[in-house]
């Protein structure tokens, strides 16, 4: 059974191009690239015809469920089945039934498919059950007892002595830097766990095959990650194993590594039972069992001079990786490289570690370590501006990276640096300086009112304000910036050696084949646009092969903002070669001759393999060199209203300006910015997966709150194009950077409204009221007037 035809034909309506008559066309736009072609998958999704994994109706499919650990750390002594239950009607599997290595394959082989003798987190899979219907499977699950002996759990990341990864990068002379500094800005910041909350929960359907193999259909981002993990744990060869991505209802990193384990589990049950097995998580299980964004503690000391130069950055980061390594090493690496923010500084030391705790594993989430570390860097920049009495925009104008600057890893930025242009656009589009002047006046008025009643400048007592003033919440505006390396870090892309294929088939169709997945971001549309433009044919003529590992090559995972830049670049090169080959034969333009050529000479198939970006050098051992072939740049301005009596924040507007190199599809690109922005606003204000005693407390959608339309600000997404010459189509990545930038802008706006700095995300009403009541409020007001006092402003 196949949920989709082997190739997805563009539907009728996708021939229309959406473009408002007044939409300014980019000078870099082509006939198809740079235009808002409607997405390929829209019609199926709009009519309810798109088939997500839970919609694959396979008669006779059984239901699989997972027996999970309920303790954070324990010895597993045995698994007891209640003799009163009729076990003949179900299939039960434990670690002993894993035919290959009992390992979910990532960088480190520490995570078992099913726990063997030690339980390392609440929710860890211990046994599997399949039954003909879900109620029976669930009833059986309730009759399984885990015999355990509790072990002391490590729950505090700062107390953990097991590190999954550590990095230290240094540049210049830190001591000399601090000696030259007039002021030292210090801060400790914490960021919480964040749930991806893709609307479609995790799900997998495994179908056993007559050859003893298995085909899985699933909601996933990285078909070949799943494929490699299954091959290893199931001890199956490639010929008996296919991974097919079904329509996927969002990923955001949450379907990067997690589906590998679930696919193995579903496949084990399918092979054992001889039936197709569906495993579709309910929201509660999804919240409890899946990875979250790494929580982190970030300590910064920055040295600045009185005349406003940044001369030293000393940064320490601890990320909580949870019970297993998953992707912690690479998340930490990206977080490390971005930790100083997009600012040139001659003397830098960044020391980081990702540690083990007995909590559910942390994993990939849009931004991948950068939202955490860049939040702290932007807090520092904003506090430095305040201490120096400079506008935070002006400070960034001076500090932001430009061409020729050298990063902390020693990378010379040679091209495509848009830091200042995104900043200027954001400042201008938001009317930042004018708004800032107005909020400063309002703050001064409130302070005067408060002083008038001799209340010591405390903002938590509304007595000094007249009624009208109190009814209006305090308004604030704040700015932040971000940079984000596109593609895998360091030598990652070379190790991946991605492959794509573009072909004219024997019957004269143009098909592109890649395992890059459509997870809502528009990959299938964007990649087809790039190929169509290069071949000089209509967008509707380019078909995209189904994401099935038995059809498409391994183009690497759909992560790291790499699809448009890396995979798109490979496809453009492949299309170029295809066009040249056909035109050489036919001596006519490709568009006019390829079909005829196919009928006369058979198919033409071009396979392109990644061969590295020119001039990029990286040393894995020292973590130094060209960390990324190119960076995207972003600036955001946030406006908030804060109720000074309740601490409640309403984010009113965000202007997010993002550099994408060259825009392939403006409508899809701005959609990425808007979605990432709201996830960042949620991160800043309301979202936190709270874990206590190793247990997730808010494990329902009613308690893990994400922004609704009512909470969402107006979002103005603005694209800036600073082309990247290293890519054949000059485009850079965009998926993640919009997530990196809003949190610090929102917190800066809260400060602008209230005078209080919130160091911990989310900036909840309790934290805001706490900060308003604490001394810190007064200290920060004092430091604005007297830079000398800054050193005391540490916490």
């Amino acid at each position, binding site marked *: 059974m196949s949920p989709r035809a082997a190739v997805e034909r563009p539907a009728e309506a996708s021939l229309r191009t959406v473009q408002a008559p007044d939409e300014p066309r980019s000078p870099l736009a082509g006939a198809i690239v740079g235009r808002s072609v409607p997405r390929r*998958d829209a019609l199926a999704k709009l009519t*309810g015809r*798109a088939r997500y994994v*839970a919609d694959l109706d396979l008669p006779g499919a059984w239901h699989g469920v997972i027996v999970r650990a309920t303790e954070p750390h324990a010895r597993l002594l045995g698994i007891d089945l209640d003799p009163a239950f009729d076990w003949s009607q179900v299939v039960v599997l434990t670690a002993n039934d894993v035919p290959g290595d009992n390992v979910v394959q990532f960088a480190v082989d520490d995570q078992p498919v099913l726990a063997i003798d030690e339980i390392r987190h609440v929710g860890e899979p211990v046994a599997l059950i399949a039954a003909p219907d879900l109620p029976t499977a669930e009833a059986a699950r309730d009759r399984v007892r885990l015999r355990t002996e509790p072990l002391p759990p490590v729950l505090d990341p700062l107390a953990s002595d097991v590190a999954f990864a550590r990095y230290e990068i240094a540049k210049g002379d830190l001591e000399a830097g601090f000696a030259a500094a007039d002021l030292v800005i210090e801060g400790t910041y914490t960021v919480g766990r964040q749930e991806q909350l893709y609307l479609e929960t995790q799900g997998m359907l495994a179908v056993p095959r007559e050859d003893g193999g298995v085909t899985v259909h699933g909601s996933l981002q990285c078909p070949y990650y799943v494929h490699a993990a299954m091959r290893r744990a199931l001890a199956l060869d490639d010929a008996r194993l296919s991974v097919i991505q079904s329509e996927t209802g*969002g990923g955001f990193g949450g379907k990067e590594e997690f589906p590998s384990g679930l696919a193995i589990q579903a496949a084990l049950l399918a092979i054992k039972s001889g039936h197709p097995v569906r495993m579709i998580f309910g929201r509660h299980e999804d919240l409890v069992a899946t990875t979250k964004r790494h929580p982190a503690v970030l300590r910064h000391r920055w040295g600045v001079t009185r005349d406003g130069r940044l001369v030293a950055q000393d940064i320490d980061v601890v990320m909580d990786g949870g019970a297993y390594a998953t992707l912690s090493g690479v998340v930490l690496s990206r977080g490390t490289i971005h930790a100083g923010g997009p600012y040139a500084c001659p003397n830098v030391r960044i020391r980081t570690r990702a540690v083990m705790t007995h909590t559910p594993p942390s994993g990939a989430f849009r931004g991948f370590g950068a939202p955490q570390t860049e939040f702290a860097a932007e807090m520092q920049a904003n506090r430095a501006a305040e201490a120096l009495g400079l506008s935070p925009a002006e400070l960034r104008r001076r500090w932001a990276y430009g061409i020729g600057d050298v990063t902390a890893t020693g990378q010379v930025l040679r091209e495509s640096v848009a830091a200042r242009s995104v900043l200027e656009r954001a400042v201008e589009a938001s009317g930042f300086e004018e708004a800032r002047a107005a909020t400063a006046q309002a703050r001064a008025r409130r302070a005067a009112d408060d002083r008038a009643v001799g209340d010591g400048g405390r903002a938590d007592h509304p007595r000094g304000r007249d009624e009208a003033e109190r009814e209006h919440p305090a308004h604030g505006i704040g700015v932040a910036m971000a940079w984000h390396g596109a593609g895998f870090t360091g030598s990652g892309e070379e190790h991946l050696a991605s492959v794509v294929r573009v072909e004219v088939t024997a019957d004269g169709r143009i098909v592109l084949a890649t395992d890059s997945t459509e997870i809502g971001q528009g990959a299938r549309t964007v990649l087809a646009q790039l190929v169509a433009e290069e071949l000089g044919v209509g967008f509707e003529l380019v078909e995209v092969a189904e994401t099935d590992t038995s059809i498409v090559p391994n183009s690497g995972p759909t992560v790291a903002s790499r699809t448009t830049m890396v995979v798109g670049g490979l496809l453009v090169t492949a299309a170029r070669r295809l066009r040249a080959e056909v035109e050489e034969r036919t001596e006519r333009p490709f568009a006019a001759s390829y079909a005829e050529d196919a009928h006369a000479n058979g198919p033409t198939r071009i396979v392109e393999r990644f061969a590295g970006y020119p001039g990029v050098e990286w040393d894995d051992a020292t973590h130094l060199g060209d960390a990324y072939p190119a960076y995207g740049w972003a600036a955001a301005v946030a406006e908030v209203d804060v109720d000074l009596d309740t601490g409640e924040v309403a984010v009113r507007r965000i202007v997010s300006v993002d550099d994408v190199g060259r825009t392939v599809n403006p409508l899809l690109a701005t959609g990425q910015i808007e979605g990432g922005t709201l*996830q960042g606003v949620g991160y800043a204000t309301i979202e936190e997966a709270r874990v206590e005693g190793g247990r997730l407390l808010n494990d329902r959608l009613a308690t893990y709150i994400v922004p609704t*339309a009512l909470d969402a600000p107006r979002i103005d997404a603005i694209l800036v194009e600073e082309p990247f010459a290293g890519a054949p189509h000059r485009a850079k990545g965009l998926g993640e950077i919009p997530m990196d930038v809003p949190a610090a802008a929102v917190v800066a706006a809260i400060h602008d409204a209230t005078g209080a700095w919130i160091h911990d995300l989310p900036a909840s009403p309790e934290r805001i009221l706490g900060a308003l009541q604490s001394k810190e409020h007064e200290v920060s007001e004092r430091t604005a007037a007297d830079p000398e006092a800054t050193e005391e402003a540490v916490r």
Partner: protein
Amino acid sequence: MLIRLNVNGEWREADVWPGSSLLAMLRDDLGLWGTKNACEQGECGSCSVWLDGELVCSCLVLAAQADGRSVGTVESLGREDALHPVQEAFLEAGAVQCGFCTPGFEVAVADLLRREPHPNDETIREALSGNLCRCTGYQKIMDAVHLAADRMGEAAR
């Protein structure tokens, strides 16, 4: 138990277990997969349908409660070659990304525009606050609602 209901203008019946939700019946028994399940707790709106013309979360309604009544799902809105104005607006405004929230939003938006043909931003945000979208930041959904309202207003004139 045997439940009989009018779905999108057609009488259908199925034998469901007594605790079955309307959502489960629509999907598992009637094969109407367009209505989505993202929480089963009334928190996300992905399962929005009309029950006797009233907008409900079908995960919170028992199939038995819908017995003998009429249900409208996303499948009643339009086909690929004849989109409903709300669907057309979602397409053109770019309000669809992963699409998992889309059927629920379309039903909720069509419902809003039936009650309130020219809603302002505040009304729209309020009306859609029971539907979660994690992809779009709601901005293009807002655009789509305005676009659909304009189009439907013109058509009605």
